């Protein structure tokens, strides 16, 4: 597979290490009420869609960026890739 790195263009997927569902960037607050239930869901439960999937890839043999790649799990077609840091910053209300 080829991953369209937002900064470096198409790179062979072999340079990357896969983690999984992009929701892993939405880590619950460990000090909040009900944290245990929130973490059980965060750590273990997955949508596991047959179709479009947002997922985390680490450019291990590259620039060490974590990417969020949008990919179809049935066709393997890649619909886009973003720097995970930018996505996380935007989600946290910071600048992207």
């Amino acid at each position, binding site marked *: *597979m080829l991953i369209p790195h937002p900064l470096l263009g198409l790179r062979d*997927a*072999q340079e990357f290490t*896969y*983690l*999984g*569902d992009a929701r892993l960037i939405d880590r619950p607050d460990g000090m909040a009420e009900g944290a*245990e*239930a929130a973490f*059980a*869901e965060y*750590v*273990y*439960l*997955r*949508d*596991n*869609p*047959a179709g479009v*999937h947002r*997922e985390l890839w680490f450019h291990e043999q590259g620039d060490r960026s974590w990417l969020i790649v949008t*990919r179809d*799990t*049935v*066709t*393997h077609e890649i619909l886009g890739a973003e720097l995970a840091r930018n996505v996380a910053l935007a989600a946290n209300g910071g600048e992207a």
Partner: protein
Amino acid sequence: MHFSGFRVIKEALTGHKGWKPLWRNPEPQSSYDYIIVGGGGHGLATAYYLARTFGQARIAVLEKGWLGQGNIGRNTTIIRSNYMLPGNEPFYEFSMKLWEGLEQEFNFNAMISQRGVLNLCHTDAQRDAFRRRGNAMLLAGADAELLDAAGVRAMAPFLNFDNARFPIKGGLLQRRGGTARHDGVAWGYARGADMRGVDLIQNCEVTGFRIEGGRIQGVETSRGYIGAKKVGVAVAGSTGRVMAMAGMRLPIESHVLQAFVTEGLKPVIPGVITFGAGHFYVSQSDKGGLVFGGDIDGYNSYAQRGNLPVIEDVAEGGMALMPMIGRARLLRVWGGIMDMSMDGSPIIDHTHVEGLYLNAGWCYGGFKATPASGYAFAHLLARDAPHDTAKGYRLDRFARGYVIDEKGVGAAPNLH
């Protein structure tokens, strides 16, 4: 019809006119007591044991394609019970014991061949872990032997003992392990179930569950609605999408695992051998092909096909372990969709919907579990209580902290 050598001779002499269909092609009835979703190995075994052992009637197996089209038809055929953890080992040893009488029981030669499974170790720490595991196996009533390097060499002199990057230090041998003809297992169960009145319905895809008041009523299918008192789902790689129809998110991801076979060769490899310093396991089929595999590709996939890096990685592992296979040619590589669970162990449990049961999370070890999985799932469906050896395979073990993590890699499905 009873199969036997006598029957084969008789039919040969009379032009094979007497052979009957292995199973019927029934039309679905309007309702059943039990519906098993998924006509793969686990689903067929479940139906078989429900009918045979638990004496249940009015059972249907619904298969979206053809019987045995899932992972039962695309695995590397290994059977073994060499697990370490108390949550697993008794279950897999129960499965092994079922394998050992299976062919005579269901009157079908599934070519179960106990030629041994040898796991190699390459470090002292691996050997320590093997000793722990081997002892766990013996304590659960299975067989195990810990071999040193000389013992391995005596069994498999063709391994690389000369200039390996990771020298072989020994191995954990289970002599009762081996292989079985995967399709034969599916067909044996299918025929056995059919003979006991189970309706095996092919080309019948489940498209929804009808749930009323928190209770299952039946399933919507590509061939219409079918009512059921209890529904058991055993759809492996499709678990995510099927259970989503019942509103469930699961501790499961679907991943692709590739498997490989070479062109036919005269016998070279006695049993099953697994590399401990790379991703490679191999056996040789009765037909002569080296059947081997390695790691999953590592990304979520429903595509039943993988990519080149893993093919190369597996070949490197094979070449590092047994360089004598180099001039053999790869004939075919295929992919199956694995229901990788969050701790590498399966789930056999009821769900939040009354009457809806789940059998899933087999990762890439489901084949060897086929008999026990079917038996335990049938037990759960018939008695509403888990089978003794499958008590740990609960769905709530993740939230509650009772995971069964044989590899110790945590909630990383692509690493199990």
